[in-house]
């Protein structure tokens, strides 16, 4: 549907840009407020601060009762890094078996995997909580990261299976002729070719684990174990609106890593959503 004339085109662009501004205004307002002296946050309405201060960032970073945001960021980064390794390794192994190997009950198991994707977390979380408590894993990251090493996020298995299926089988056959077994085919042929699927898995694991609140709220309780999201919530409860500038400063900082991931890996994210329909 090409547009009739230039005038219409300009109108359309204006409309779309106006939409973008309205949508992103709250985020810009948060950034701008975090840079304003406290007394100006609700009085100075312009997005461009009359006076810029880094105070909120310095005060905010100092955190609550002696633990600084350095600790919280290190905790979040560790959690995310281990989760990524777990998902990439376990999901690609399972995906290779589903996409390329022959075994009994393959269809049944594949169906089972799709079914596990549909079970709401809340149905599983209570027994899991009881189990992790029995294992004495409370207040550690184990309840969050260990399941990732067992391909529990079926979505990534599914995504990788689809990707492997699109690769020509002749590659595996050639490797078999050269005397490669399934393990060498997996490491030498398949893994190098599924890098885009691995990148997609990495990005989404990063974003989801970074933003995740529910499981971190359940399992991480000690002050020194808190992640960035949990620290923000404690910050809100402890300071309320009295330290709004710092609260905004730390909130804004916490979404920066996600923004950066998005900027650098946009293509993978947009394709990931468009082809598989995830969030």
């Amino acid at each position: 549907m090409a547009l009739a004339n230039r005038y219409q085109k300009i109108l359309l662009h204006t409309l779309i840009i106006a939409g973008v501004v309205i949508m992103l205004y709250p985020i810009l307002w948060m950034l701008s407020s975090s840079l304003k002296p406290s007394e100006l946050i609700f009085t100075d309405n312009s997005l461009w601060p009359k006076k810029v201060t880094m105070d909120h960032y310095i005060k905010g970073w100092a955190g609550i009762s002696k633990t600084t945001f350095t600790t919280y960021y290190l905790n979040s980064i560790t959690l995310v890094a281990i989760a990524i390794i777990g998902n990439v390794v376990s999901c690609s192994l399972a995906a290779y078996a589903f996409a390329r190997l022959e075994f009994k009950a393959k269809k049944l198991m594949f169906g089972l995997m799709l079914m596990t994707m549909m079970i709401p977390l809340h149905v599983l979380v209570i027994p899991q909580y009881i189990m992790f408590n029995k294992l004495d894993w409370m207040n550690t990251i184990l309840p969050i990261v260990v399941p990732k090493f067992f391909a529990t996020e079926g979505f990534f298995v599914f995504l990788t299976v689809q990707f492997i299926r699109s690769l020509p089988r002749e590659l595996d056959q050639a490797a078999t002729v050269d005397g490669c077994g399934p393990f060498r085919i997996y490491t030498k042929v398949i893994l190098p070719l599924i890098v885009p699927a691995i990148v997609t898995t990495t990005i989404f694991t990063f974003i989801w684990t970074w933003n995740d609140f529910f499981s971190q709220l359940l399992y991480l309780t000690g002050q020194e174990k808190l992640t960035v999201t949990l620290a923000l919530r404690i910050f809100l409860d402890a300071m309320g609106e009295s330290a709004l500038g710092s609260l905004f400063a730390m909130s804004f900082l916490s979404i920066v890593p996600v923004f950066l991931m998005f900027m650098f890996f946009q293509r993978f994210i947009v394709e990931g959503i468009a082809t598989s329909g995830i969030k």
Partner: protein
Amino acid sequence: MLHKAQAILYLKGVRMMRRVLTRRRGEGLIPYLFLAPWLIGVLAFSAIPIFTSLYLSFTNYNFIGTPNWIGLRNYLTMFTDDPQYLQSLKVTFMYVFVAVPLELAFALGLALLLNRGIGGLGTYRSLYYIPSLIGGSVAIAILWRQVFGAEGIVNQTLGVFGFDMPSWIGTPGYAVWALILLKVWQFGSPMIIFLAGLKQIPSDFYEASSLDGAGRWKQFAHITLPMLTPILLFNAIMQMISSFQAFTPAYIISEGTGGPVNSTLFYTLYLYQNGFGNFQMGYASSMAWVLFIIIGVFTWLAFKASDRWVHYDN
């Protein structure tokens, strides 16, 4: 007699093991080595928990003692003796069935605007996607408390037009709208899926219909919309499933209480309060199962009704 039976069973077992180990079709045990992590995961983190949770839902269990079998009592209490539970159902249904249609309407509208062959599609698409990227985070929920606060930017803007509004977050009847708008704000991800769908519609359909003299509105009603219905169904189901389970925004915005006056008491928030606040784990398990059933029923209904309005192109 017994020995003979045991011997037969033993031999059968050996034969089965041998068959598993040396199966012709396929690669014997090797596939199971690749699958081992997943298999263990399914068993430990899905299969066993799901049956345990079903069992717990028929018990009274406070996390410290042993579960006490009470039959259907949890389920009966929910619907006959727990006004807060009914309130959480009401709030959640309102949230899902207002926010999702609105979100999808925006997603479709913007996708249609962006799909009209204008430049800068990639940039616009990314900018509109940003809210979906971070909308579920604690940071944005914290921001939302201020945006919809007494002096927040929403009320300041409405003030310019002469509306004097109370704090949305602090007023029952308003608070849930702040949450609904937070969901609608994240229309970027269904929009991307609509855009992908729009690209699949062959352009000769439009060319042929313009030759027949169809106007833009007719083209939309007879080509675009019918061709998009499978995607609309998909988006509707995915968004519905995820919003039934929404937790973080309600938790942060009401500081864990579901207030004011339970007006943002989302289902999962009440489940969390029961299961992990009061450690009523039996009751919380039965709540989880009812949620599972509700999601299942609505997904089934959506598929069932789809025969009537979803156009599959064979």
